[in-house]
């Protein structure tokens, strides 16, 4: 028997699925539904919008903050820099001109600012030169056109109180100020521009030229080419922003799955009707998928507009911070394009799973508006566990190459495997939860079973929460690990109310002076005026709390592989100990070293290198270490080192009262060790630590710097490096807020599917207590499962990374961020449960059946 139908002939060119007209009709309907029900999709829409906007602003800031690759090159492909005076300068420039044709010669003469150690350049440059034009722009007035005219930067104008039209006598030469200029590629570049030939004694000459195809080093050692930050380094700002955007979109997709599932469920009757009218499964899937893609497109467009507006508003601040001009549309368009595409792909992918599920609902069941019963999926946890193990192995490979620049590919693959493992393990965790809750009270039991039954949305929500927690825990654990390393101490250099004034012996050295600089170590008569200047600085800051920092010719060394000792070892003078409230009785008589670095006393293979014959100010350090000097004996493998130059296993006493900054005297050598090792003669004054009543202002710091410079000193103030606890606290807050946010967004979706059960419960006499308990248990259980899964995955990654890592050893993972983990593992689920309890007073509206017109 034939199955051919005597039916209406198919339209010409229309395939079995109705072709383009059918797809167009279906997409049109999806668009109309989106317009009608946009409120129900506001969550995913808002997430996409924020993610895209954040990506645009983040990418713009990240890529525009570093100086442009062409800074100092203009439009030239090459630049030769000559230090002047040089008798061969003219001939070298002539040779370049002969070989490469067009040149742009920029002459600079360093000029002092009276009363300041700061300088500016007197610069001779042709504003219309062939290559240097991007390095000059006119703010007001005009460029100098003849000798006797000068254009200055606004900084120089402010310093010398100049304005256009003034006659400025600089170094005895009168010049008329004709304009205000700037270097768009470096706003911190302060200079006075004159016409070429007017710089009589240049200190530096830069020649810009193009030498395509010629290796710069073959032209000369002083020739360079622009080197974009992104080139050659996989982990550049663009790839980092892209990676963050990808993870963000993945989270959105995971949250979106729940949203689109509920939405599809709400439309089940309409979709059934569509099928009854002859729509194929493909058409039904297309409705949901098109909805997802449309949400993505809408979110991407809105996010793009918002992000662009935010960038345009924020651009002046970035320019000011980055010290160079940034074009309004100088954006990483590739990154933005990929982010926009990712937004659409994420929502499309999120809608795909519900689309497949809803297309499988029998037409009659769909027409009746009955939600499809959850499919009992018994997925093994094995693939997830295998991937988790694989991720750990990849991280181990990446960690093995730590420090030599390779291992990026393993790192990226490890992250991908880790994320996939979390996604695959999430449903299994829900099944495990349901099993564990078998004997719990009815509300909790029901909540756990519902989570396991409706894994389509609760599994994806759990995966999203776990990924948020994973990021937070990983940052916390790695921070604790890195900051917990007592040898290579990391963190802020000083407290915000501390300031160090260094003599040329000290870490910073003075201008033109290093520890072994031309003017030699600072002793005796040279020290007195410096001490006076330091005390003047302290007085100006309203402080009388000033401690002289002295160093001996000694340093610590860890004679083993891994991170080396880093930091200055000052002398524990009675004055220094007193300043930090440490009494003599608190110091063990046999202690050689006092340190606030927790755990340092327990490190084996420590040795104290010293040179009793050294002159004051001459450093001693391990041959390959990061010590203050560089002429010490031995290397990390020689333990114990020669006794006349080294004390193996010095007695280290931990004293928590010492300051913790990396530049502060956190580790000091005792008077006992000084006497025993005969280091008294080599003690030198490195500087003064000033404790101020309040953190100094920028103006006070500038003033202190000028005072210090005038006495040949340098100062060090608090840098911007965060503390370990700051990083961990922020990461913890991020993880908890993200997890709670996802819970807030998804818990309603998850519970909505069981609203029918709730009504049944109410009908059987369950009170609002039960309803609250159900929601609280759902939120708490999801939070707890997410916290545990995320933490386990983070530790798997961290352990893998440290497994065979030369710098970050496995033992350093013992620095557990306990409070952070407690907050995440206990506080967050508890907060979720409490919030769920409080917000679950009202019975959710029925969602399973949406009446059609």
């Amino acid at each position, binding site marked *: *028997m*034939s*199955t*051919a*139908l*005597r*039916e*209406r002939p*198919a*339209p010409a*060119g*229309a*395939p*079995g*699925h*109705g*072709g*383009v*007209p*059918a797809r*167009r*009709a*279906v997409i*049109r*309907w999806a668009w*109309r*539904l989106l*317009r*009608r029900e946009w409120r129900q999709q506001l969550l995913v829409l808002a997430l996409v919008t924020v993610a895209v906007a954040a990506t645009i602003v983040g990418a713009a800031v990240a890529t525009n903050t570093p100086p442009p690759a062409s800074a100092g090159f203009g439009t030239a492909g090459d630049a030769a820099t000559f230090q002047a005076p040089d008798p061969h300068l003219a001939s070298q420039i002539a040779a370049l001109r002969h070989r490469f044709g067009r040149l742009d010669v920029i002459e600079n003469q360093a000029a002092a600012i009276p009363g300041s150690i700061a300088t500016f350049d007197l610069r001779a440059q042709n504003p219309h030169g062939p290559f240097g034009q991007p390095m000059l722009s006119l703010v007001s007035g005009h460029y100098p056109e003849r000798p006797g005219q000068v254009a200055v930067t606004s900084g120089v104008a402010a310093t010398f109180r100049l304005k256009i039209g003034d006659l400025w006598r600089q170094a005895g030469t009168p010049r008329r100020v004709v304009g205000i200029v700037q270097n768009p590629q470096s706003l911190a570049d302060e200079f006075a521009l004159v016409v070429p030939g007017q710089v009589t004694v240049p200190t530096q000459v830069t020649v810009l030229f193009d030498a395509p195809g010629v290796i710069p080093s073959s032209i000369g050692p002083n020739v360079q080419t622009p080197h974009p930050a992104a080139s050659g380094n996989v982990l550049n700002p663009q790839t980092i922003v892209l990676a963050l955007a990808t993870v963000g979109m993945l989270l959105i997709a995971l949250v979106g799955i729940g949203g689109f599932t509920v939405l599809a469920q709400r439309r089940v*009757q*309409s979709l059934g*009707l*569509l*099928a*009854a*009218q*002859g*729509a*194929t*499964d493909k*058409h039904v899937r297309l409705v949901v998928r098109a909805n997802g893609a449309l949400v993505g497109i809408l979110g991407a467009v809105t996010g793009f507009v918002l992000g662009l507006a935010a960038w345009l508003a924020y651009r002046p601040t970035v320019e000011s911070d980055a010290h160079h001009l940034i074009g309004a549309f100088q954006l990483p368009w590739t990154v933005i394009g990929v982010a926009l595409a990712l937004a659409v792909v994420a929502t499309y992918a999120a809608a795909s799973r519900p689309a497949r599920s809803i297309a499988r609902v*029998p*037409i*009659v069941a769909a*027409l009746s508006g009955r939600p499809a019963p959850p499919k009992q999926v018994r997925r093994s946890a094995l693939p997830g566990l295998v991937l988790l193990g694989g991720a750990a192995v990849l991280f181990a490979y990446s960690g093995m190459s730590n420090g030599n620049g390779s291992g990026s590919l393993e790192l990226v693959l490890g992250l991908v495997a880790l994320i996939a493992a979390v996604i695959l393990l999430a449903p299994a965790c829900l099944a495990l939860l349901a099993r564990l809750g078998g004997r719990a009270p009815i509300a909790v039991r029901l909540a756990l079973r519902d989570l396991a039954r409706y894994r389509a949305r609760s599994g994806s929500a759990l995966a999203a929460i776990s990924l948020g927690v994973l990021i937070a825990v990983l940052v916390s654990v790695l921070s604790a690990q890195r900051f917990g390393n007592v040898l290579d101490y990391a963190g802020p250099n000083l407290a915000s109310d501390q300031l160090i004034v260094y003599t040329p012996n000290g870490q910073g050295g003075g201008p033109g002076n290093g520890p072994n600089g031309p003017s030699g170590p600072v002793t005796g008569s040279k020290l007195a005026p410096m001490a006076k200047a330091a005390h003047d600085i302290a007085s100006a800051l309203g402080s009388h709390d000033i401690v002289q920092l002295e160093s001996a010719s000694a340093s610590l060394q860890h004679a083993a592989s891994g991170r080396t000792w880093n930091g200055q070892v000052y002398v524990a003078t009675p004055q220094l100990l007193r300043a930090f409230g440490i009494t003599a009785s608190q110091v063990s008589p046999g202690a050689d070293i006092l340190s606030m670095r927790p755990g340092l006393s327990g490190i084996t293979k420590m040795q104290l290198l010293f040179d009793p014959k050294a002159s004051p100010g001459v450093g001693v350090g391990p041959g390959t270490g990061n010590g203050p000097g560089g002429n010490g004996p031995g290397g990390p493998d020689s333990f114990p080192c020669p006794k006349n130059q080294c004390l193996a296993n010095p007695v280290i006493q931990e004293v928590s009262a010492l300051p913790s900054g990396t530049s502060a005297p956190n580790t000091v050598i005792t008077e006992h060790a000084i006497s025993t090792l005969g280091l008294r003669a080599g003690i030198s004054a490195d500087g003064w630590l000033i404790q101020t009543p309040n953190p100094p202002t920028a103006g006070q710091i500038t003033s202190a710097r000028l005072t210090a410079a005038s006495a040949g000193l340098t100062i060090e103030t608090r840098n911007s490096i965060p503390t370990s606890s700051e990083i961990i606290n922020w990461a913890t807050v991020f993880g908890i807020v993200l997890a709670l946010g996802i819970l807030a967004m998804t818990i309603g979706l998850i519970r909505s599917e069981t609203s029918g059960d709730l009504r049944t419960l109410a009908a059987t006499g369950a009170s609002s207590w039960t309803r609250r308990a159900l929601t609280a248990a759902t939120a708490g259980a999801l939070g707890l499962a997410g916290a545990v899964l995320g933490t386990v995955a983070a530790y798997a990654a961290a352990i893998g990374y440290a497994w065979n890592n030369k710098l970050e050893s496995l033992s350093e993972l013992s620095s557990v961020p306990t409070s952070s983990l407690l907050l995440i593992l206990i506080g967050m689920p508890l907060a979720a449960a409490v919030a769920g309890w409080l917000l679950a007073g009202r019975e959710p509206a029925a969602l399973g059946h949406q*009446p*059609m*017109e």
Partner: protein
Amino acid sequence: MTVLEMRDVSKAYGQGAGRVEALRQVDLTVGAGGMVAVMGPSGSGKSTLLTIAGSLEEASTGEVLIDGAPLSRMSRNDKARLRRRMVGYVFQDFNLLPGLTVAENVALPLELDGVGARAARAAAREALDGLRLADRASRYPSQLSGGERQRVAIARAVVGDRRLLLADEPSGALDSVNAEAVMRLIHEACKRGMAAVVVTHDAQLASWADRVVFLRDGHVVDQTAPLPGPESLLTPGQTS
């Protein structure tokens, strides 16, 4: 010419102790231009019969043929195409798609079948015109009365020269005036050559049909020609 033929069709849901026989060995034939009303108490299998006849569900046993083609040999896509081109449905609760205008709702089966939007819209307007709904073409379903919505649903069911119209309680949500109007429209469609199966529990409305099938517990317990219905009053020669 036979449009719908159901041979020994049975349908069971569930398994074991929970097994429910919704239809038992039902035979039904409807020819072109014929109108069959299906009556019976709740749970007798009326709607199941309709959904199986319209390929929305598969029979457990037996065979369903539409225009001579057995549904059991058709793929899901073939059945979808069959519904687009040959079978029109009318539901009790209208089931118009929200978000689409009246004209777009009616044009939907054609567009799904690959007919261009303009041509489909023209055909829809023609169908709406026939049901005196042309002025409602650009409105949304929510802007129509119940009777109008059901007329639109009928327009959608007949558009594109379909051959079989299946109506499940098409007047269930309407008042008596609108219910009569709906039945009249279905009757007129049959006059143009369509075969129709109408599920109803209203004997008055069933009298529009050529034949009434009674179902009980899934069995066809009786088949009879209905008493002269209201339409007979309109037919010259049958009024005496």
